[in-house]
């Protein structure tokens, strides 16, 4: 019989090794899946993991990696703060949409004014939009003890309805011949988040890196971060140390909402260009996977965001080049989270073979 035995303290070696092991296991079982679908598994794995980085067309894929990775990292960093403290913001997708709507609205309000302050104001608007949307589950939880998981998740669908309404109504391009969607912000230089479109560089990439450093310093060097970690490890001990649970909830939800809002703003002012009905593509949900894949550690999230972007880009390449079904790619991404969570057990427990003893 195999039994799990709790380690006296978490193993550092395993906590570093499990993400790598999870990726390897995903490759093996993903490969099996592709083989069962009648595709060459080695080629499929190479198309997903190798070609976008070092293949013949890497010059095309690499900027794409930055564009896909930046919002994932930015959102995941915010989520990880709350997750560490046991505060589950599942609605980053909604905060992302609200950030995009608010930020774009600020930009469109100034159109066609050419001024340096337009973009910074949009950034502020985006952050505030996401923050305010996250404050709804936050305040409801603190005041009435509602479940933030449900409220934040349901607000995603409310945000999606608002998005549709905005692209059909208030923010609709007056010169758009009646098509839904706002003006394209890429045609309005003062409001564009691009730094260099050829390199895939926009301000969201910069913000993602700053967020990583910010989160690292916060968690390791600052009292607020210490309180977040303390709350996650032992809520009673946190209260004993003087943590105000309500304030911590508002802080964590607020930061994650603001960062998700920023991600939405940078996306709408850059890669997406305009508010449309189908503006959101699930970054807010994928970021949850990224946060856990990165073990809720800022540097880990940076790497995980890159990896997740790679499976997106590589997955799309595999779909187009090898005619793999989109569902297979999604199963592949799901496997990654599954293996990660399953192997995570080894950090705190060791497996031991044992003879039966207790009835």
């Amino acid at each position: 019989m195999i039994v799990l035995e709790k380690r006296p303290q978490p193993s550092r070696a395993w906590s570093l090794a499990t993400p790598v092991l999870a990726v390897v296991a995903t490759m093996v079982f993903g490969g099996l899946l592709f083989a069962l679908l009648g595709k060459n598994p080695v080629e499929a794995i190479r198309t997903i993991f190798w070609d976008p980085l070092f293949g013949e067309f890497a010059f095309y894929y690499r900027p794409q990696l930055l564009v896909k990775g930046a919002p994932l990292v930015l959102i995941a960093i915010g989520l990880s703060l709350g997750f560490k403290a046991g505060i589950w913001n599942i609605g980053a997708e909604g905060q992302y949409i609200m950030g995009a709507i608010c930020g774009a609205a600020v930009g469109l309000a100034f159109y066609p004014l050419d001024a340096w302050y337009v973009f910074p104001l949009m950034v502020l608007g985006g952050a505030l939009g996401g923050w305010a949307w996250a404050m709804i589950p936050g305040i409801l939880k603190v005041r009435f003890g509602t479940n933030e998981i449900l409220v934040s998740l349901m607000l995603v669908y409310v945000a999606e309805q608002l998005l549709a309404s905005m692209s059909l109504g208030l923010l609709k391009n007056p010169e758009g011949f009646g098509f839904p969607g706002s003006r394209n912000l890429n045609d309005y230089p003062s409001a564009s988040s691009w730094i260099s479109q050829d390199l895939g560089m926009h301000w969201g990439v910069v913000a993602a890196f700053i967020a990583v450093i910010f989160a690292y310093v916060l968690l390791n060097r600052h009292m607020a971060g210490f309180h977040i970690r303390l709350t996650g490890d032992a809520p009673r001990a946190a209260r004993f140390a003087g943590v105000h649970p309500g304030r911590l909830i508002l802080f964590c939800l607020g930061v994650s909402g603001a960062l998700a809002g920023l991600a939405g703003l940078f996306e709408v002012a850059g890669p997406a260009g305009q508010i449309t009905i189908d503006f959101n593509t699930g970054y807010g949900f994928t970021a949850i996977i990224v946060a856990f894949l990165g073990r809720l550690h800022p540097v880990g999230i940076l790497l995980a965001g890159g990896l997740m972007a790679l499976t997106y880009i590589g997955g799309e390449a595999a779909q187009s080049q090898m005619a793999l079904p989109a569902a297979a790619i999604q199963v592949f991404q799901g496997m990654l989270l599954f293996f990660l969570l399953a192997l995570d057990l080894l950090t705190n427990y060791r497996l031991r073979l044992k003879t039966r003893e207790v009835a």
Partner: protein
Amino acid sequence: MSETLLSIRGLTKAYPGVVANSDVSFDIGAGEVHALLGENGAGKSTLVKMIYGLVKPDSGAMTLRGAPYAPAEPRAARADGIAMVFQHFSLFDALNVAENIALGMENPPPMRDLARRIREVSETYGLPLDPFRTVGDLSAGERQRVEIIRCLLQDPKLLIMDEPTSVLTPQEVEILFKTLTKLSAEGTAILYISHKLEEIRTLCDHATVLRLGKVVGECVPRESTAREMAELMVGTTLQTPTRAGRELGPVALALRGLSAASPSQFGTSLKNVHLEVKQGEVLGIGGVAGNGQDELLAVLSGEIPTDEGAVELKGAGIGRLGPAERRRLGLLTAPEERLGHAAAPDMSLTENAMLTGSVREGLERRGFLKWAAAQDFAEKIIKAFDVRTPGPDNAARSLSGGNLQKFVIGREVLQRPDVLVVNQPTWGVDASAAAAIRQALLDLAASGAAVICISQDLDELMEIADRFAALNEGRLSEPRPTTGLTVDEIGLMMGGAHGMEVAAVG
């Protein structure tokens, strides 16, 4: 002593990294009250679990009435006439007494017959208990009675009792002892596990002393002194804490008509609590577990806010302040639950030193943490309080209970509090560490701090406290000087035998 009932020969049980029992042998005679004596971690629990069939020994043999005995599971042990009352009760609050007892039976009789048998047994043994009362409304002593009657209904030949008196008032202990004496006179052997020496001296015929899994001695408790047994149990000469003569200063902390609802559904609300502690004084607060101890600590630590004036520190109302502000003013606390409340299990000792030390030890500056200073502080605690650990980087949960307790108490004491409140400071701590902790509390009081010690260990309170008060259902009795206080008086302050004053053994 008549014939041998249970004979244990060379029982050995090892767990990874620790030998719980090594070559343990002793005999229990029929009708004998046999004490199993030892500190926490001496291997008492493992030994009785082997007898009760919960754990299988690695080697060694047991014989019951001359026949080989190797229970595969508790059910087999019960079939052979061995019953056990655990330290922690396994009762359902929402069910009544009879239903709870029926749940533990193989073939429960109809409820009416069972209720009648419960009444019979409870009357025979002087354990009054109404079979139709809901268990949730019973006191700890009454719940224990349910467990005992559940065992007695099986007509056991050997009754194992694991630390039965830790939840009882002195009066309830007396009732229990009468019952046990009667049982033993009828031929039921009792294996009595405890580390309370006076109890063992009054009750037991024979004692086996365990230390680090080995039998280190046997004695007849009535003919030995408590000190002899303690030194056998600990293995070294014990140091009794010394109380220097102290000058009492002005009132350091006062509670004025404090009432507070418990945050937990099964907690006890505090009702109109008054108390005053002076500088240099140790106030002992006794009481049976669950009578408001946790709530009192939370009210003092700042985890439960109260009216501004209900808690006064050096004359100023601090009822609204949180834990960090109170620490800044000099009011420090150490809760009972070490892992998860006083310390964060998965965090290192350095981080746990930061947990309460950041304010008074200057471990933060404008929100930024000074980890080097925190590590120095953790090392200082480890050194001053002899905490056995490889170093401050180790997680709190890797420490043994006693070592972590020394760390937790040391962390607060070394911050030079003006008022220190501790809850169960030596719970689960070995005797020498407990003596060190008590000495530290006395030294702190001698240096002019006010100390409130909440504890269920009356001997401890008598040893260190200047005045004694008891919590009973959230109410605090009038504090009285400990010198000259009798056990009977203490028992009455603790609420007597809960509703059982009429208990008379037939």
